């Protein structure tokens, strides 16, 4: 994927349906951060937002061939960048 970072660090609050993003930094000491890394959201991995629930949260992301629904507010252990 030819990916150009749009601008600097974002969080999961900034994601919209259809966006591509990459994990910049994952917190390994946070319980949520560690669990999500075990599920494949490791540093440097790219993912796509495939769905946003009708009420805005949770969102579904496609990472490493897996579609995972997560809550935005539980993903704040992650710093991400949004790709074009």
């Amino acid at each position, binding site marked *: 994927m030819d990916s150009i970072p749009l601008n600097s660090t974002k969080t999961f609050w900034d994601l919209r349906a259809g966006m591509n993003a990459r994990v910049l930094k*994952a917190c*390994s*000491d946070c*319980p*949520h951060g*560690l*669990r*999500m*890394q*075990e*599920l*494949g959201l*490791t*540093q*440097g*991995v790219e993912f796509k937002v495939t*769905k946003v*629930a*009708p*009420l*805005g*949260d*949770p969102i*579904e992301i496609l990472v*490493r*061939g*897996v*579609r*995972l*629904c*997560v*809550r935005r507010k*539980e*993903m704040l252990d992650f710093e991400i960048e949004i790709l074009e």
Partner: protein
Amino acid sequence: MVGNPNCGKTSLFNALTGSNQKVGNYPGVTVERCSAPIQLGHTVAELVDVPGLYSLAANSEDERVAAEVIQGKTEHPDLLLCVLDALHLERNLFFFSQLADQGLPMVVAVTMGDLLERRGSRLDTARLAQLLGVEVVEVIGHKRHGLAELREALARNLEQPRAASCEFGFPIELETKVAALSERLARIGLDVSRAEVRHALLNPESPLVASLKDLPEILAYVASAREDVAHLPEIGPSFDLEKRYAWAGMVTKAVISHGTALPSRTDRIDAVLTHRVLGLAAFVGVMYVVFQSIYTFAGPLMELIEGAFAWLGERVQPLVASHPVLESLVVDGLIAGVGGVVVFLPQILILFFFISVLEGSGYLARAAFLMDRLLGWAGLNGRAFIPLLSSFACAIPGVMAARVMPDPKARLATILIAPLMSCSARLPVYVLLIGAFIEPQFGAFWAGFTLFAMHFLGLLVAIPVVFVLNRKVLRGTRLPFVLELPPYQLPKWRDVWLAMYFRGKLFLKTAGTIIVAMSLVIWALSYFPRSEADLARYEASFDTAAHSKATDEELDAARAQHVQSELLRHSYLGRFGRAIEPVFAPIGFDWRISTGILAAFPAREVVVPSLGILFGLGGEADEESGDLRQAIQQATWPDGSKLVTPYTAVGLMVFFALCCQCMATLAAVKRETNSWKWPAFMFAYMTTLAYLGAWIVHMIGLALG
């Protein structure tokens, strides 16, 4: 049998073992242990279905139990059957890499290969076996494809065990230290897996380091080795995870060849079912169909069961009529008690039919996805939706349905508030009191409104209860809410049938015994003491003059009712009811209502016939009967003031709405939480809330006159 959650493990387990499964609990915890004998060639082995895991690093109780089983701390598996889901191979291989480190012999079963092919991709099983170093069998559980090969592979590997051999690309400097430390530990007789040693070298808080605190020499070695390793350039905090995922990614690329990917059927369905507007509409539609079917189909079946037990009672009665005690014990105690259990079975079976159909088709996950925001606001999560909605029919299937929730704390919170939802057994009480006090004075609109308000009350009270529970009782770290939306598929009827069969059996076995026992206790309390002398005395005390205009027949009936109500009044239950009248007096209830409430603790629907007896109308009264309405309307306190005002009626309804008067629910909670602590807690908090609620209503009533 181990694997990720949703990897097709249960389907494969059912296909391999059939219906002779044993469901129990791991000692002291709420985690279910599901096992079954399996024929492998000439031997019979025990296959244990370990709860689904994403990682061996335990985050929850389920995971800790599963990890301990795999690591041989609680059970000693001879062979691991690792189930890998071909659609999510990369993440499944991450878990595999942790299993491989345990050095246990393994056989791999790959599921979902058919769905992968439908997406136009292919899995090279032979190449995968080569890369993992263990036998790999492709299976499709519900089509019974590959099962024979899997059995053969399992039998072969039980005789000649093979552990996985794969390298995850850890730097050679690290691996030499790991090997050296493993050897030192082996020399002093400690058999520790490479994974644990590697973990100890990378993390100072590793449990292995803690267990070595009596061996300063080794600890010093660990410390110096850790220092050397820390200088390696690529080692960061998530080093271990990243290496494993890099390996998993490589293997996945090597074994799966992608074809041209068309937009899948699942994506097209999801475009509608998770759509902003259509999705919510479809959701409401699906829920409507489910619950309408439960009401429609369970009703006649329940009537049938009630009829059957009434018929049985009538048949048995003449056989035991010679002994009045035995007659009452068998007919009113035993048969009525067993009938009271079996009557819940249709609801449970129908609900579990729908839950397993929705689960098997993939819609249950979508429902959780749609509802999560709404329930998250109340401190729950999307998966609580089905259990709570079911509880409006009956809390028992609701409590049992909470097992779809993997996070134990969220699950417990859901179980604890499920009985606050107004179940169908509360309806007779509402109908009786609204019919007697609200409708005649305030009209049909307020009658309907009261009925709605009573159903809404439980929901409203549940929100602060969850809030307090989450902050005070169920503290500690929560798992993040993670949900996968599996591809849509037709439910496997075999799994649907097995789910209904096991849930039904479990309910009858565990909840059933307790309910029957409690019904017998309440029967005994309301029957004894009773003697010929008492009977004669109560008959003599009947005031014939008050019924001067009655025919002989009416007189006999009235006398029988009078005797019955005197008997109940003087029974242990009645005495107890009068003894605790002062407790209920502050909320405006007299001894008759108090006794009715006490008698209703095992099952709240009992209150209507009990009130019938207590107000001298016999046990045949039901909520529609005008006599009982009238009797309650006209009942007075000894000083002549009205016993039940509209406020008392609302207070009584609030009491019933909030109180945990259902032995069956408590038994189901005991079964689901594997401890008496939570049912006891639930009983205490709900009874307190009920009392407070009724007290507040009574106070408002007094203030407004």
